[in-house]
């Protein structure tokens, strides 16, 4: 079978560093992840992910999640559940963007027949993920991230299908990238049950767009927050 090389997601650290230094986009990102401590912690996670954990985040608390709880500074103790809350809120934000994407695509009326049916099914799954993740954040004692306002440039049907495939492959790699960071076994099980559904979506959309179902071969590649967020930010208005 033809192995069409998958577009490698950009691995630019620069974009995240830029996010860290640009107050406007930082504000946008913090707002997107919900206010207060959770947002600061998420930003700490992000900075950690890109190796810039020492920057002053402007929000007061400096969170260093790479160290164990014993090593945490007393001014900002990151309790274990908080880390899971941040990861789930990150996933929630991605799912909000995905759900909104399919809503926009379906509204635009670009597709009919079986392709429309597939997009409807996938969009419905993303909505269910949103609901489950928001409930999970609540169950963990956190505040669910606010629904971001989104914007998508929707061109031809083939361009939109390609974008959908890109988004789903990114989503699958984003979940995979967090599996090792999740503390709670229950949260991990929930994340895994979504991860493989994102992978199924990705494979289906790859087929729709003439890409191989397993573009990375026998082993899927994870993506860190630092790799994922710069690719998602263009879709988020506020």
């Amino acid at each position, binding site marked *: *079978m033809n192995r069409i090389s998958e577009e490698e997601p950009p691995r630019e650290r620069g974009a995240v560093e830029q996010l860290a230094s640009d107050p406007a986009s930082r504000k946008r990102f913090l707002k997107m992840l919900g206010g207060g401590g959770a947002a600061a912690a998420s930003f700490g996670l992000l900075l950690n992910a890109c190796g810039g954990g020492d920057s002053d985040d402007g929000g007061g608390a400096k969170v260093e999640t790479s160290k164990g709880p014993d090593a945490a500074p007393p001014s900002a103790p990151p309790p274990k559940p908080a880390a899971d809350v941040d990861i789930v809120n990150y996933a929630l934000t991605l799912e909000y963007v995905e759900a909104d994407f399919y809503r926009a695509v379906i509204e635009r009326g670009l597709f009919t027949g079986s392709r429309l049916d*597939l997009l409807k*099914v*996938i969009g*419905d*799954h993303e909505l*269910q*993920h949103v609901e*489950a993740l928001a409930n999970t954040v609540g169950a963990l004692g956190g505040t669910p991230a606010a629904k971001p306002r989104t914007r998508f440039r929707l061109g031809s049907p083939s361009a939109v299908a390609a974008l959908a495939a890109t988004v789903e492959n990114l989503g*699958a790699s984003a979940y*995979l990238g967090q*599996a*090792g960071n999740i503390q709670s*076994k*229950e949260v*991990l*099980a*929930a994340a*895994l*049950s*979504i*991860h*493989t*559904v994102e*992978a*199924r*979506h*990705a*494979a*289906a959309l*790859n*087929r729709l767009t003439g890409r*191989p*179902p*397993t573009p990375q*071969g*026998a*082993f*899927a*590649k*994870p993506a860190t927050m630092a790799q994922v967020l710069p690719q998602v930010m263009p879709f988020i208005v506020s």
Partner: protein
Amino acid sequence: MDNSKLAAPELAAVEIHGFTRGAFIMRAVLAAGSVYGLQTVGPFVNEALAQDKAGDIEILNFALTLEFLETAFYRSAEGLSGEAAALARTFGDEEAEHVAALTKAIRGLGGTPAKKPMASFPKGDQAAFLKLAQTLEDTGVSAYNGAAPKIQAKEVLAAAGTIVQVEARHAASIRLLNGEDPAPVAFDRTLTQKQVLRAVEPFIGA
């Protein structure tokens, strides 16, 4: 057994031989999946491994047994054509890579890799092959998802994650060939452990 009453009768036709723990759990997985449906597999594996107090090596050996089974299945393909033939070749190669990686990981942890089990599959036409392929891949996804939360080492969990995503992609692709929804549900796990324990009780004593 009256196959007409089974949730996934094609699984009942798969035979796996051997006396390793992995082969034993795998036989129970096939039995549970065929009788009660694939949604029972993940929680069953989770529970079986918990009862074993299985460590990472046992979990990896179970995964290895599953990958041996899948590799043998794709290698057994005969007379396929078109996209089915291409996918069976690619997926079979990828399962073989999983076998190699898991074997290496088990040795890396100081364990002894499970032996390749003898397995036999029913002979049939392309449609029958694809139906069983779909069931085996969906079973694989459920099995990994059921086992993963039991894994202790982050590195082992990460490795399992990179594999299960590929299993899910296989499952979705085969489902599309079969004219089915690539992702039949929004979550690849639907029953609680309690529900499943009740369902698989007859097999646990066996």
